[in-house]
Protein backbone atom coordinates (compact mmCIF):
# COMPACT_ATOMS: atom_id res chain seq x y z
CA UNK A 1 0.00 0.00 0.00
CA UNK A 2 1.52 3.36 -0.97
CA UNK A 3 2.24 5.81 1.81
CA UNK A 4 -0.32 8.60 2.10
CA UNK A 5 0.80 12.09 1.22
CA UNK A 6 0.77 14.11 4.44
CA UNK A 7 0.95 17.71 3.28
CA UNK A 8 0.21 20.05 6.15
CA UNK A 9 -2.18 22.77 5.00
CA UNK A 10 0.09 25.59 6.17
CA UNK A 11 -1.07 28.44 3.87
CA UNK A 12 -4.69 27.92 5.02
CA UNK A 13 -3.60 27.82 8.66
CA UNK A 14 -1.59 31.04 8.34
CA UNK A 15 -4.52 32.70 6.53
CA UNK A 16 -6.90 31.59 9.30
CA UNK A 17 -4.61 32.90 12.07
CA UNK A 18 -4.25 36.21 10.21
CA UNK A 19 -8.04 36.41 9.79
CA UNK A 20 -8.52 35.89 13.55
CA UNK A 21 -5.91 38.57 14.30
CA UNK A 22 -7.45 41.09 11.87
CA UNK A 23 -10.98 40.41 13.20
CA UNK A 24 -9.78 41.00 16.76
CA UNK A 25 -8.00 44.18 15.66
CA UNK A 26 -11.11 45.63 13.99
CA UNK A 27 -13.28 44.61 16.99
CA UNK A 28 -10.92 46.44 19.37
CA UNK A 29 -10.69 49.46 17.06
CA UNK A 30 -14.50 49.61 16.97
CA UNK A 31 -14.74 49.93 20.77
CA UNK A 32 -13.75 53.57 21.04
CA UNK A 33 -12.00 54.83 17.89
CA UNK A 34 -13.63 57.13 15.36
CA UNK A 35 -12.68 59.39 12.42
CA UNK A 36 -11.19 59.06 8.95
CA UNK A 37 -8.19 56.94 9.99
CA UNK A 38 -10.47 54.51 11.85
CA UNK A 39 -12.87 54.15 8.90
CA UNK A 40 -9.99 53.69 6.42
CA UNK A 41 -8.27 51.12 8.69
CA UNK A 42 -11.44 49.03 9.21
CA UNK A 43 -12.22 49.10 5.47
CA UNK A 44 -8.65 48.05 4.57
CA UNK A 45 -8.81 45.23 7.15
CA UNK A 46 -12.15 44.08 5.69
CA UNK A 47 -10.81 44.04 2.11
CA UNK A 48 -7.67 42.14 3.22
CA UNK A 49 -9.85 39.60 5.09
CA UNK A 50 -12.05 39.17 2.02
CA UNK A 51 -8.98 38.65 -0.14
CA UNK A 52 -7.65 35.99 2.28
CA UNK A 53 -10.97 34.09 2.24
CA UNK A 54 -11.20 34.21 -1.56
CA UNK A 55 -7.58 33.23 -2.15
CA UNK A 56 -6.92 30.62 0.54
CA UNK A 57 -10.34 29.24 1.56
CA UNK A 58 -12.32 29.43 -1.69
CA UNK A 59 -9.34 27.99 -3.56
CA UNK A 60 -8.98 30.76 -6.17
CA UNK A 61 -5.19 30.81 -5.69
CA UNK A 62 -4.22 28.63 -8.66
CA UNK A 63 -7.05 29.41 -11.12
CA UNK A 64 -7.22 31.78 -14.12
CA UNK A 65 -6.41 35.46 -13.32
CA UNK A 66 -9.89 36.42 -14.58
CA UNK A 67 -11.44 34.99 -11.40
CA UNK A 68 -9.00 36.93 -9.23
CA UNK A 69 -10.02 40.08 -11.10
CA UNK A 70 -13.76 39.39 -10.76
CA UNK A 71 -13.61 38.65 -7.03
CA UNK A 72 -11.11 41.44 -6.39
CA UNK A 73 -13.33 43.91 -8.26
CA UNK A 74 -16.30 42.89 -6.10
CA UNK A 75 -14.36 43.65 -2.91
CA UNK A 76 -12.99 46.90 -4.36
CA UNK A 77 -16.47 48.14 -5.41
CA UNK A 78 -18.01 47.31 -2.00
CA UNK A 79 -15.07 48.94 -0.21
CA UNK A 80 -15.28 52.04 -2.43
CA UNK A 81 -19.05 52.49 -1.97
CA UNK A 82 -18.80 52.15 1.82
CA UNK A 83 -15.68 54.32 1.93
CA UNK A 84 -17.21 57.14 -0.13
CA UNK A 85 -20.45 57.05 1.91
CA UNK A 86 -18.66 57.08 5.27
CA UNK A 87 -15.87 59.52 4.44
CA UNK A 88 -18.18 62.07 2.80
CA UNK A 89 -20.39 62.43 5.88
Amino acid sequence: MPALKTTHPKPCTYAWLLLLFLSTASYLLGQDKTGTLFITSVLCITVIKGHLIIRYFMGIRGVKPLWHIIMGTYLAIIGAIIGIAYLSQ
Partner: protein
Amino acid sequence: MPNTHSDSAVQQVVLQPLPGDFAIWIFIFAELSVFAIFFAAYAITRNTHLELFNVAQTHINKTYGYINTILLLTSSYCVAIANRYIKEGRSTACTRFLAYAMMLGAAFLAVKIAEFNNDFANGITLSSNLFDMFYISLTVFHFMHVIMGMVILSVVTYKSYKGKYNATEHTGIETGSVYWHMVDLVWIILFSLVYILH
Protein backbone atom coordinates in the same frame (compact mmCIF):
# COMPACT_ATOMS: atom_id res chain seq x y z
CA MET B 1 19.30 18.96 -17.86
CA PRO B 2 17.76 21.91 -19.78
CA ASN B 3 14.58 19.85 -20.10
CA THR B 4 14.25 19.65 -16.32
CA HIS B 5 14.23 23.43 -16.09
CA SER B 6 11.69 23.86 -18.87
CA ASP B 7 9.45 21.12 -17.37
CA SER B 8 9.38 22.84 -13.99
CA ALA B 9 8.65 26.16 -15.69
CA VAL B 10 5.69 24.58 -17.50
CA GLN B 11 4.43 23.07 -14.22
CA GLN B 12 4.50 26.50 -12.59
CA VAL B 13 2.13 28.07 -15.13
CA VAL B 14 -0.43 25.20 -15.24
CA LEU B 15 -3.69 26.71 -13.98
CA GLN B 16 -6.14 24.75 -11.87
CA PRO B 17 -9.84 24.57 -12.74
CA LEU B 18 -12.30 26.63 -10.71
CA PRO B 19 -13.16 24.61 -7.55
CA GLY B 20 -16.58 22.94 -7.50
CA ASP B 21 -19.40 22.98 -10.01
CA PHE B 22 -19.42 26.05 -12.29
CA ALA B 23 -23.15 26.57 -11.59
CA ILE B 24 -22.43 27.30 -7.92
CA TRP B 25 -20.22 30.23 -9.00
CA ILE B 26 -23.10 31.74 -11.00
CA PHE B 27 -25.32 31.32 -7.93
CA ILE B 28 -22.63 32.86 -5.70
CA PHE B 29 -22.26 35.92 -7.94
CA ALA B 30 -26.03 36.39 -7.84
CA GLU B 31 -25.99 36.14 -4.03
CA LEU B 32 -23.00 38.49 -3.71
CA SER B 33 -24.76 41.04 -5.95
CA VAL B 34 -27.88 40.99 -3.75
CA PHE B 35 -25.79 41.50 -0.61
CA ALA B 36 -23.81 44.27 -2.37
CA ILE B 37 -27.07 46.16 -3.04
CA PHE B 38 -28.04 45.75 0.64
CA PHE B 39 -24.62 47.01 1.80
CA ALA B 40 -24.73 50.00 -0.57
CA ALA B 41 -28.30 50.84 0.53
CA TYR B 42 -27.22 50.71 4.20
CA ALA B 43 -24.15 52.95 3.64
CA ILE B 44 -26.04 55.52 1.55
CA THR B 45 -29.10 55.61 3.88
CA ARG B 46 -26.80 56.04 6.88
CA ASN B 47 -25.29 59.10 5.22
CA THR B 48 -28.66 60.85 5.28
CA HIS B 49 -29.64 59.67 8.81
CA LEU B 50 -26.27 59.91 10.54
CA GLU B 51 -27.47 60.84 14.04
CA LEU B 52 -30.14 58.12 14.13
CA PHE B 53 -27.69 55.41 12.91
CA ASN B 54 -24.98 56.43 15.39
CA VAL B 55 -27.39 56.33 18.35
CA ALA B 56 -29.20 53.12 17.30
CA GLN B 57 -25.90 51.32 16.60
CA THR B 58 -24.89 51.69 20.27
CA HIS B 59 -27.85 49.44 21.22
CA ILE B 60 -26.46 46.38 19.46
CA ASN B 61 -23.84 44.17 21.12
CA LYS B 62 -20.52 44.14 19.20
CA THR B 63 -19.25 41.16 21.22
CA TYR B 64 -21.94 38.86 19.76
CA GLY B 65 -20.79 39.90 16.29
CA TYR B 66 -17.14 39.32 17.17
CA ILE B 67 -17.79 35.83 18.63
CA ASN B 68 -19.79 34.92 15.52
CA THR B 69 -16.97 36.18 13.28
CA ILE B 70 -14.47 33.89 15.05
CA LEU B 71 -16.90 30.93 14.86
CA LEU B 72 -17.62 31.39 11.14
CA LEU B 73 -13.96 31.96 10.18
CA THR B 74 -12.93 28.83 12.09
CA SER B 75 -15.75 26.86 10.49
CA SER B 76 -14.58 28.02 7.05
CA TYR B 77 -11.02 27.01 7.97
CA CYS B 78 -12.24 23.48 8.90
CA VAL B 79 -13.98 23.21 5.51
CA ALA B 80 -10.77 24.30 3.74
CA ILE B 81 -8.82 21.62 5.68
CA ALA B 82 -11.48 19.01 4.79
CA ASN B 83 -10.95 19.88 1.11
CA ARG B 84 -7.22 19.40 1.47
CA TYR B 85 -7.68 16.01 3.15
CA ILE B 86 -10.05 14.63 0.51
CA LYS B 87 -7.57 15.65 -2.22
CA GLU B 88 -5.02 13.52 -0.36
CA GLY B 89 -7.48 10.61 -0.23
CA ARG B 90 -7.97 10.89 3.55
CA SER B 91 -11.77 10.66 3.63
CA THR B 92 -12.06 9.92 7.37
CA ALA B 93 -10.12 13.07 8.28
CA CYS B 94 -12.19 14.98 5.69
CA THR B 95 -15.46 13.82 7.27
CA ARG B 96 -14.17 14.73 10.73
CA PHE B 97 -13.33 18.30 9.69
CA LEU B 98 -16.63 18.72 7.87
CA ALA B 99 -18.34 17.67 11.13
CA TYR B 100 -16.27 20.25 13.07
CA ALA B 101 -17.34 22.91 10.54
CA MET B 102 -20.99 21.97 11.05
CA MET B 103 -20.64 22.16 14.85
CA LEU B 104 -19.14 25.64 14.55
CA GLY B 105 -21.92 26.62 12.14
CA ALA B 106 -24.48 25.40 14.69
CA ALA B 107 -22.69 27.43 17.39
CA PHE B 108 -22.96 30.52 15.11
CA LEU B 109 -26.72 29.97 14.80
CA ALA B 110 -27.07 29.49 18.58
CA VAL B 111 -25.17 32.73 19.33
CA LYS B 112 -27.22 34.59 16.71
CA ILE B 113 -30.50 33.33 18.23
CA ALA B 114 -29.29 34.47 21.68
CA GLU B 115 -28.41 37.86 20.17
CA PHE B 116 -31.84 38.17 18.49
CA ASN B 117 -33.54 37.30 21.82
CA ASN B 118 -31.50 40.00 23.53
CA ASP B 119 -32.29 42.51 20.75
CA PHE B 120 -36.04 41.84 20.81
CA ALA B 121 -36.04 42.15 24.62
CA ASN B 122 -34.39 45.57 24.19
CA GLY B 123 -37.11 46.70 21.79
CA ILE B 124 -35.10 46.31 18.57
CA THR B 125 -37.57 45.35 15.83
CA LEU B 126 -38.00 45.80 12.09
CA SER B 127 -40.22 48.85 12.67
CA SER B 128 -38.42 50.54 15.58
CA ASN B 129 -36.17 52.71 13.38
CA LEU B 130 -34.29 52.75 10.06
CA PHE B 131 -31.02 51.35 11.47
CA ASP B 132 -32.84 48.50 13.24
CA MET B 133 -34.71 47.71 10.02
CA PHE B 134 -31.41 47.35 8.13
CA TYR B 135 -29.73 45.51 11.03
CA ILE B 136 -32.55 42.93 11.39
CA SER B 137 -33.04 42.51 7.61
CA LEU B 138 -29.33 42.03 6.86
CA THR B 139 -28.62 39.68 9.75
CA VAL B 140 -31.78 37.59 9.24
CA PHE B 141 -31.05 37.34 5.50
CA HIS B 142 -27.51 36.18 6.29
CA PHE B 143 -28.87 33.83 9.01
CA MET B 144 -31.01 32.11 6.35
CA HIS B 145 -27.91 31.65 4.19
CA VAL B 146 -26.10 30.02 7.12
CA ILE B 147 -29.04 27.59 7.52
CA MET B 148 -28.88 26.84 3.78
CA GLY B 149 -25.12 26.30 4.09
CA MET B 150 -25.65 23.94 7.03
CA VAL B 151 -28.10 21.88 4.96
CA ILE B 152 -25.55 21.66 2.12
CA LEU B 153 -22.73 20.77 4.56
CA SER B 154 -24.95 18.07 6.17
CA VAL B 155 -25.49 16.39 2.80
CA VAL B 156 -21.80 16.64 1.89
CA THR B 157 -20.68 15.33 5.32
CA TYR B 158 -23.09 12.39 5.12
CA LYS B 159 -21.87 11.48 1.62
CA SER B 160 -18.25 11.82 2.77
CA TYR B 161 -19.02 9.54 5.76
CA LYS B 162 -20.50 6.99 3.35
CA GLY B 163 -17.29 7.07 1.30
CA LYS B 164 -18.80 8.69 -1.80
CA TYR B 165 -15.80 11.00 -2.28
CA ASN B 166 -12.15 10.22 -2.92
CA ALA B 167 -8.94 11.91 -4.09
CA THR B 168 -10.10 12.04 -7.72
CA GLU B 169 -13.87 12.62 -7.31
CA HIS B 170 -14.77 15.30 -4.77
CA THR B 171 -16.62 17.97 -6.75
CA GLY B 172 -19.54 17.81 -4.29
CA ILE B 173 -17.30 18.78 -1.36
CA GLU B 174 -15.72 21.62 -3.34
CA THR B 175 -19.14 22.93 -4.40
CA GLY B 176 -20.51 22.89 -0.84
CA SER B 177 -17.31 24.44 0.47
CA VAL B 178 -17.36 27.36 -1.96
CA TYR B 179 -20.93 28.19 -0.87
CA TRP B 180 -19.91 28.05 2.83
CA HIS B 181 -16.95 30.37 2.20
CA MET B 182 -19.28 32.80 0.39
CA VAL B 183 -21.45 32.90 3.56
CA ASP B 184 -18.26 33.67 5.52
CA LEU B 185 -17.17 36.37 3.03
CA VAL B 186 -20.52 38.14 3.29
CA TRP B 187 -20.40 37.99 7.11
CA ILE B 188 -17.01 39.70 7.39
CA ILE B 189 -18.31 42.64 5.32
CA LEU B 190 -21.57 42.71 7.31
CA PHE B 191 -19.66 42.57 10.62
CA SER B 192 -17.50 45.58 9.69
CA LEU B 193 -20.38 47.57 8.25
CA VAL B 194 -23.10 47.03 10.86
CA TYR B 195 -21.16 46.29 14.07
CA ILE B 196 -17.83 48.10 13.76
CA LEU B 197 -17.94 51.18 11.48
CA HIS B 198 -19.52 54.25 13.04
